């Protein structure tokens, strides 16, 4: 530790820390553009100048290591003058277009120019002009505004792992871009918008849409992958205008996948905004009373079943489970993909090491998964660990470009690969369980972690990577066949007369046996809704207060940012209303009461925002039924951008899919 005095305040910081970090520890603000705490230090903007005793000139604090006994001054005439000079140089080529710039109101340059800018420019010469670049369908570039901080270059190379951005040319002709025009091949590209301190890289879908001070901000969680990234939903006039990540060090740091950030335009399209009832073979608009009445008439005396979707909130699934129990049905399932999960113990289906725990791992074997498209933020964490040089990664199954080098290993060699690792991890993709021998795969993966010494009291190296934000909560709630109950295949094959689909449209609706009475409760009208006899319009994750559990078992609350459209309602309320019509009224009539009941029945829901339990106390594995087959693993997600009803309804996601998935254009022969 080094003792440093900043403006008379003494602080202790670790050796090797920068002066800027010492200033922050002392509570002193230092302006900066190029420095970003999650990126390497570039030291090229010079905005962070401070004075250090005995140093002949002001020093760039972000790139200057502390020394014991150092005295730093952050607010002297010299410092202020130096920063004013830097600001004047930065503004020489910066256009005066704040009024039409989307960064306006949340621009570091604008803010710092208030403190260090001159009121008039002394620069009479022409400003340089830089051609705008194309870096993909999500990012709008106005390269005149670029101040060459190279944050985007470092982000692409270090965090996203796609070193495709760079600075070409030199001096006045220096330009930031990809040189060859191409869409940045990253699922994390939207983060460039946040990382750019000026308006050079802004959100394309959000261009000219709103000003930050007009927005109402709601803190929530992302459910479109199983990471459960912390997000902020920005709303104006009842419409979601953008979604941004919030900082959550244990989950997403400050990143967000493009799917979670940009798919919200799908929230407005193809929505179910009123109940529908099938009359004379045709779906017809109906009132809530009619729809619930139709259910109340149809269900009694029937064999019932319920299937929960992948992005549902825990509350609605708990309510539906309660309703089914009250109606005497044990036929429940939440595994639309047919994954052979074992929910008898939470650590059989959780990412037990934790996302932050990846940073302690020294060897990982990934089985049947492509974390880059299944959970890009989590993949960035693996990459972060790999960057330290202390991690090796093996892949069983299809080997994808994960942005870090991997070694293909066969299931049988995986044990040898993990040999010698202190903290081995096995990451099993949920997709690897969605096959005949899924249970054997699960048992084999657990066994692999066990044999490698990964199941200890201080380390839990078995990890299941789910795909969506509602999948773990469903397992926690036991939304699975009860005693003698049917699973999804059994229900679809005619084992039930009436089927309640709660946001479940992740399977082929034509599998539902003809003659089954189908209730579809959800927000988007897709195949399952078209097959329904009654449609109950529900809410998306931005339209309800809901509880979600991420892949590591972290219970988080999403919040209502906008009201559901039209007559759509929060899902648990719909189920509560139906229970009343069916004469089996559920014993709660407020969200608080429901949550209390839920936490009493499933104590895990009382542990808000807590990571996985550390370590493994019982290394007995899940029961393997059947033998491990020979079939090669298939990756479950081929198209990152379109995976669920919301993303499939999103024009932005459609554009991404079209841009990134198109076949390579052949170069015209000369």
């Amino acid at each position: 530790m080094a003792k440093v005095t900043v403006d008379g305040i003494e602080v202790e910081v670790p050796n090797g820390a920068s002066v800027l970090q010492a200033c922050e520890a002392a509570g002193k603000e230092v302006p900066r553009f190029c420095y970003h705490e999650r990126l390497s230090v570039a030291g090229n903007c010079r905005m962070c100048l401070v004075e250090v005793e005995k140093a002949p000139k002001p020093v760039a604090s972000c790139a200057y290591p502390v020394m014991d006994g150092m005295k730093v001054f952050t607010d002297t005439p010299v410092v202020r003058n130096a920063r004013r000079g830097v600001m004047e140089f930065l503004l020489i080529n910066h256009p005066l277009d704040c009024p039409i710039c989307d960064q306006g109101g949340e621009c570091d340059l604008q803010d710092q120019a208030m403190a260090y800018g001159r009121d008039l420019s002394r620069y009479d010469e022409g400003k340089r002009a830089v051609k705008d670049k194309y870096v993909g369908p999500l990012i709008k570039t106005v390269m005149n505004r670029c101040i060459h901080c190279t944050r985007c270059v470092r982000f692409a190379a270090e965090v996203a792992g796609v070193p495709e951005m760079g600075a070409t040319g030199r001096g006045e002709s220096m330009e930031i871009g990809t040189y060859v025009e191409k869409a940045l091949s990253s699922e994390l590209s939207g983060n460039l918008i946040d990382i750019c301190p000026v308006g050079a890289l802004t959100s394309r879908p959000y261009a000219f849409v709103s000003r930050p001070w007009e927005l109402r901000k709601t803190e929530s969680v992302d459910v479109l992958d199983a990471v459960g990234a912390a997000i902020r939903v920005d709303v104006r006039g009842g419409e979601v205008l953008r979604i941004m990540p919030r900082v959550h060090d244990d989950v997403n740091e400050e990143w967000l996948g493009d799917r979670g950030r940009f798919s919200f335009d799908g929230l407005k399209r193809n929505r179910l905004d009123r109940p529908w009832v099938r009359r004379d073979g045709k779906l017809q608009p109906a009132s809530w009373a009619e729809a619930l009445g139709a259910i109340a008439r149809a269900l009694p005396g029937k064999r019932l079943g319920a299937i929960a979707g992948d992005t549902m909130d825990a509350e609605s699934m708990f309510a539906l489970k309660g309703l089914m129990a009250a109606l005497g049905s044990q036929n429940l399932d939440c595994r639309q993909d047919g994954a052979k999960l074992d929910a008898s113990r939470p650590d059989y289906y959780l990412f037990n090491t934790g996302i932050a725990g990846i940073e302690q791992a020294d060897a990982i074997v990934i089985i049947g998964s492509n974390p880059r498209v299944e959970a890009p933020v989590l993949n960035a964490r693996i990459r972060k660990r790999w960057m330290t040089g202390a991690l090796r990664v093996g892949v069983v199954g299809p080997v994808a470009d994960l942005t870090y080098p991997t070694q293909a290993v066969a299931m049988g060699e995986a044990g040898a690969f993990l040999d010698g690792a202190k903290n081995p991890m096995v990451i099993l993709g949920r997709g690897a369980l969605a096959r005949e021998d899924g249970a054997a795969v699960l048992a084999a993966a657990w066994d692999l972690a066990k044999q490698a010494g990964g199941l200890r009291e201080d380390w839990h190296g078995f990890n299941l990577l789910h795909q969506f934000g509602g999948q773990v909560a469903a397992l926690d709630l036991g939304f699975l066949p009860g005693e003698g109950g049917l699973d999804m295949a059994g229900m679809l094959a005619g084992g039930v007369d009436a089927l309640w689909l709660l946001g479940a449209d992740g399977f082929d609706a034509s599998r539902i046996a003809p003659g089954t009475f189908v209730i579809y409760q959800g927000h988007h009208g897709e195949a399952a809704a078209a097959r329904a006899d009654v449609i109950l319009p529900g809410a998306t994750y931005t339209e309800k207060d809901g509880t979600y559990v991420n892949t590591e078992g972290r219970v988080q609350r999403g919040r209502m940012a906008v009201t559901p459209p039209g007559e759509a309602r929060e899902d648990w309320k719909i189920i509560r209303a139906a229970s009343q019509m069916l004469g089996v009224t559920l014993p709660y009539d407020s969200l608080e009461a429901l949550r209390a009941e839920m936490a009493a029945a499933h104590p895990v829901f009382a542990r808000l925002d807590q990571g996985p339990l550390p370590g493994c106390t019982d290394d007995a594995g899940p029961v393997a039924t059947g033998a491990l087959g020979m079939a090669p693993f298939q990756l479950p997600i081929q198209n990152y951008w379109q995976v669920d009803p919301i993303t499939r309804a999103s024009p932005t996601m459609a554009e991404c899919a079209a841009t990134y998935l198109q076949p390579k254009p052949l170069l015209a022969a000369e």
Partner: protein
Amino acid sequence: MSAQGPGGGFHATHAVGKAEAAQPTEFAFDAASEAEIEKIIARYPAGKQASAVIPLLYIVQRQMGRVTGSAWVPRVAMDVIAQRLSMPPMRVYEVATFYLMFNTKPIGRYHLQVCGTTPCMLRGSDDVLAACKSAGGLKGYGDTSADGLFTLTEVECLGACVNAPILQVDDDYYEDLDYDSTVRLIEALKRGERPPHGSAIGRQTSAPEGGPMVLTGSED
């Protein structure tokens, strides 16, 4: 291919600009280049081959000059270098565009590089420039003559100010030029000759005009 495929399958190229049109679609090192590369890469420790990027860019530029008569570095060649040195193509683009010595666009057979910095300017670089324009058929800096023989570039101090003004033709310095000697030089180049480089007035290296004046044994 309709699916993203493992890990990406990102091939989207958005647009092909005008400058792109002149870019060849293929590049391969020839035997002479390969021999040079082998020697150069051996100079760097294993895993640090990326350090060889500048010499390799020169090799490309010389090979292009040899083979096509236009010494420049096409983009595919940068990709080939990136692959050879296991580095991201972008890092090669950055280096190639940073150094003005690498031509990223096709140039004429002879690259006329006029030094326009103060000492050369005081000693008559304007005349050298005028001679290049008139004899070479060039409109100004950045231009390539219609016959494809010459490209004219202004460069900063070439570090040979004692013998100013300087005209660098490809890799060679021609020194102590004036209008007429520059015209003669260019005419010779047009005929396919390569006049000996160095001083046009017979100066010995950078000794004073008219020969050495000290340590000649005659000064007392």
